[in-house]
C-alpha cells in the first residue's frame, strides 16, 4: 500500500512540478524527496517506488509524444546518440534517467527520517 501510494505520488507530483518549465528539469528531486519523507519506507523500497514513479512518468510522457509524432524525431535522436535509431531504447533511457535521479532523492528522503 505504502509502496504504490509513494509511487503514484512521486509520479503525480513529478508531473505537476514539471509543468513549471522555467524551473530546472530536475525540480522533481524535491517532490520525490518529500514523498519519501512523508510516506516512509525502508531506503531500498523508497528507491524502488521513487525510481518507478518517475520512470513510468517520463517513459509514458515520452511515449505519448513519440506516438503522436510517428517516431519522426526519436529515430533521429536515437541515431545521434547513438542508439542505432531505436526509439524504444531512447524512451527506456529517458525513463531510466528520470527514475535514477528520483530514486536517489527518495533514498535521501527515506534516510532523512528517524527510524
Amino acid at each position, binding site marked *: 500500500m505504502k509502496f504504490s501510494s509513494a509511487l503514484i505520488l512521486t509520479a503525480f507530483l513529478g*508531473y505537476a512540478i*514539471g*509543468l513549471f*518549465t*522555467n524551473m*530546472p*528539469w*530536475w525540480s522533481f*528531486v524535491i517532490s520525490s524527496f518529500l514523498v519519501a519523507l512523508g510516506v516512509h519506507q525502508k*531506503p531500498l523500497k523508497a528507491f524502488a517506488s521513487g525510481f518507478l514513479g518517475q520512470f513510468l*512518468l*517520463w517513459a509514458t*510522457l*515520452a511515449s505519448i*509524444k*513519440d506516438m*503522436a*509524432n*510517428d517516431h*519522426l*524525431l*526519436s529515430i*533521429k*535522436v536515437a*541515431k*545521434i546518440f547513438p542508439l542505432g*535509431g531505436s526509439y524504444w531504447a*531512447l524512451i527506456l*533511457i*529517458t525513463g531510466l*534517467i*528520470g527514475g*535514477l*535521479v528520483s530514486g*536517489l*532523492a527518495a*533514498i*535521501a528522503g527515506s*534516510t*532523512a*527520517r*528517524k*527510524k
Partner: protein
Amino acid sequence: MRIVPFIISTVATAGLVFVLNTSLPLGKTKSPRLGYFLSPQQGFWQNAEATNSSFTEEIKIKGIRNKVDVFMDERLVPHIYAQTDLDAYYVQGFIHAKFRLWQMEFQTYVAGGRLSEILGSGKSDIDQFFRRLGMVYGAEQTMQRMEKDREMQATVDAYSEGVNAYIKSLKPEQIPFEYKLLDYQPEAWTPLKTYLFLMYMSYDLTGSGAKADLKMTNAKNYFGYDEFNQLFPNIHDSLDPIIPKGTAFLKPSIVPVAPKDVDSPYLNKSPNSSEVTTALTPNKNNGSNNWAVAGSKTVSGRPILCNDPHLGLNLPSIWYEMQINTPTHNTYGASFPGSPAVIIGFNDSIAWGVTNAGRDVLDYYDVQFKDTSMQEYWYNGAWKTAELRTETIKVKAGTDLHEYIAMTEFGPVMYDHHYKNDSAHPKYLAVRWTANTAGNGLKTFYKLNRAKNFEDYQNAIAEWSCPGQNFAFASKSGDIAIRQQGAFVARWNRQGDFIMPGLDSTYKWQGMIPENENPMIKNPARGWVSSANQMATDSSYPYYLGTARSFPLYRGIMINRRLAAMNDITAIDMQYLQMENYDVFAEMARPVILKNIDENKLTVTERKYIGILRDWNFRNEITAQGATVFKAIWDSLEQVVWKDDFQDAKNPLPWPESSTLLEGLLRGGIYRFADNISTKDKVETIQDDVMEACKKASVYLEKLEKERKLDWGTLKDTRVAHLLQLPALSRLHLPIGGGKDCINATTENHGPSWRMIVHLTDEIEAYGVYPGGQSGNPGSKFYDNFIDSWAAGKYYKLLFLSKDDISKNQKTKWHITFVNG
C-alpha cells in the same frame, strides 16, 4: 536521521543531477545536458510535433495595426493577407521565426563570426576569417545607409519586431530542437542580423576571390605570366554568352588605364609569393539557371519564366515559400528566413529570377605598415594613419579572442602578422570588396515585389550592387528581359586577378561601370533570354569581365540549344528542361578521348569500360554507368596532364578548368602540357596521356564495380545535409541524376535549391519545389517532405489566390489570425 546514508544519498543525488546537467565532451563537440535534453516536459520530446497538429490559432500581439490573416496550405506554405505593408512584414518576421528560428539565427552567427560562442573554440578559424573579411563592418555600413531610407528602415524594423514577438511568446520548452542540442538560448533579433545574413549571401556568391586571388598570384609567380595565361585563359572558345553575340554595346564612359609598371611588379617579374589560405570557401558551383521565353514560343502566347538557383543543399533549406498580399502588392515566391520580402518569385503582373553574375568584386592590396603596431601605412608617398577596429570573438567555455583589424584606404587588412599562414614573409593584405561598402540590396527586392512592368523592373534593379546577379524578367504584358546588374569595377585587363601593390593609388579601382552600361537585353528576336553563369558577353563588350575560370560554360550552351529548338512551349515542358541531365561537356570531350585511344593496346577490362563510354548517350541519369566511366577517365586525364606541372609548387595553386584542357585539346596540334616534365628522356603526346588516363581509370572503375558504385547516381550520392552536418538530421543517398555541367546541376551536396516556373497567363500558372520542407523542426513531418518530389523532378502547383478564394480552397488547411491586443 541516519546521517551517513542520508549524506551519501544526498551527495549521490546532487552528483547525478550535476553530471546530467552538464555538457560533456563528446568527440570534437559536446553532448547536450542529458537530463535536460531527455526531460519529456522540457527537452527534445517537446519538439516532437504531432503529425496531426493543427496550426490554426489566434495570436494577440501589440505590433500590428489591423487584423492579419495567414492561411496555411497543405504544404504549410503561409499566405499572408494584411492591410498594410508593415503589418505584412511584421507577420512575415513572426512566421519566419515560428518555423525557422534556429536556422535564421544560426546563419547570422556564421556570418557575424560568432560560431565559437555556441560551438566552442573548434570553429574560431571561421569566425576570425569572417570578422577579418569585414562581414560585420559591411553589415554595419549597409545598416547605416538603409537607416537613411525611411521606407526600408520601417520595413526591416517591422520584420525584426515580428521575429522578436515570436521569440518572446516562446515558453522555455518550446525553443527549437537545436538550441536544446547545443544548449543555448535564442537572443533578440536586430536589423543588423538581417544585414549580416545578406552579407553572407554576398560572400557565398562573390567571396571566391578571397581564396582565388591568392592562389592565382601563386600560380602566376610559379609559371610566369605567359604559361599562366595558357593555363588560366581569359577566353572560352565555345562561349555562348548571356547577351547574344553581335549585340552592340554602348561606348564605355570609363576607360580604365593599366598602370605603366603593370608588366613588371604586377603581372610577372618580382615574385609576390603568398601562401595564405582561407578557412572557408564558397562552393565553386554556386551558380544557377534562369530563362524567360516570349509568347512567340509558347502555346499560350504568354511568356514563361524559369529559375533554379544552385546553392549548397541544406536542411533547413535556405528558402521558405510564402505569399504576401497587401493593398500595394500580391507576391509569391521564395523568401530568406532572416530577411523581409520575397527574393525570387512573381506577382500579379511580373515574374523575376536570378543567377549569379560571377564577376570579380573582391581584390587584395599589399599594404606596407611602418611597424607591427599597424598604426601607419605608406600611401602616396607619406605615412597615413590607419584606424584599428577591434572585433571580439566570444568562445564557449574559453577565453575571448580579439581581432585587431587595421582599416586602410583599400579596406580592412585581412591578413597581417597575427593572422597569417606558414608563409615565411607575411604580407599585410587589405581587402577591397564591394559587399562591405554600403549596399541597399533589400530595396531591389522590395521594389521587385511591387513591380508592374518592365520600367518598374529596371528601376528596381538599378541600384543593386552586390552580389552581382543576372536578373531575368517576364511580364504578363509580354515583355521578357535579362540584365546583369551589380556594382562592377571598371577594370583594365587582369586588374585584381592577383594581389595588387598597395603603396599608392595607382592600382586602385578607377571607377564603377555605370549601371546603364551593364549587359542587358530586352525582347530579343530569338524569343528568349537566359543565363547560366557563363560570361555575359563576347569580347566586344568594352569592359574586362574577369578571368574566364569564374564562368562555367556548358549549362548555358545546353539551355540555349534546347530553347532554340523548342516551340509551343508549356510550363510542363519547362519542368523537363529544368531536370535535363544531358552533359554538353561530355558530348564535346568524349570524341577527344575516343580519338586518342588505341584499343589494341587495352586489356579486356579496359576495353569493356571504353565500350560503356562509347554507348553512353551523354545523359547523367541515375543508372548511367557511362557517366561514371566518363568522369573517371576525364579526371584521370587531368591528373596525367597537369600533375607533373603542378606537383613541385610549394604554394597552393588553382587547378586549371576542365574547359581549359578540353579547349586546348580541341584546338588540335601539339599540346605542350601533354608532356610529362618528370620523364626527361621522352616527350609524351596527348595519345600517351589519354592511354595512361584510361588505364588508371580502369583500375578505379573496377574497384567501383566491385563496390556496386558504377551507377552514376550511386557514385554521386547526393545528400541534403543539416546545417550542423549531423547525418541523423540529414537526407542521404538521394536518387537523382544530373551533374555540374547539366541543366539539372545536382552534385553531391549542391544543386538546384529552388526550382520555379511561372507562366504569365491571366491567371498565373506557377510551379515550384525545393529540397527541404517549410518547417525547420527535425521533429515535424514538414521538415523534409519536399525532398522526394524534388529528387524525382516533381513540382507543386503554387496556390496564388485572392483572400476570398484561398479561404475557401480545399488545399487550405489552417488559418492563423493575428490581432492587435
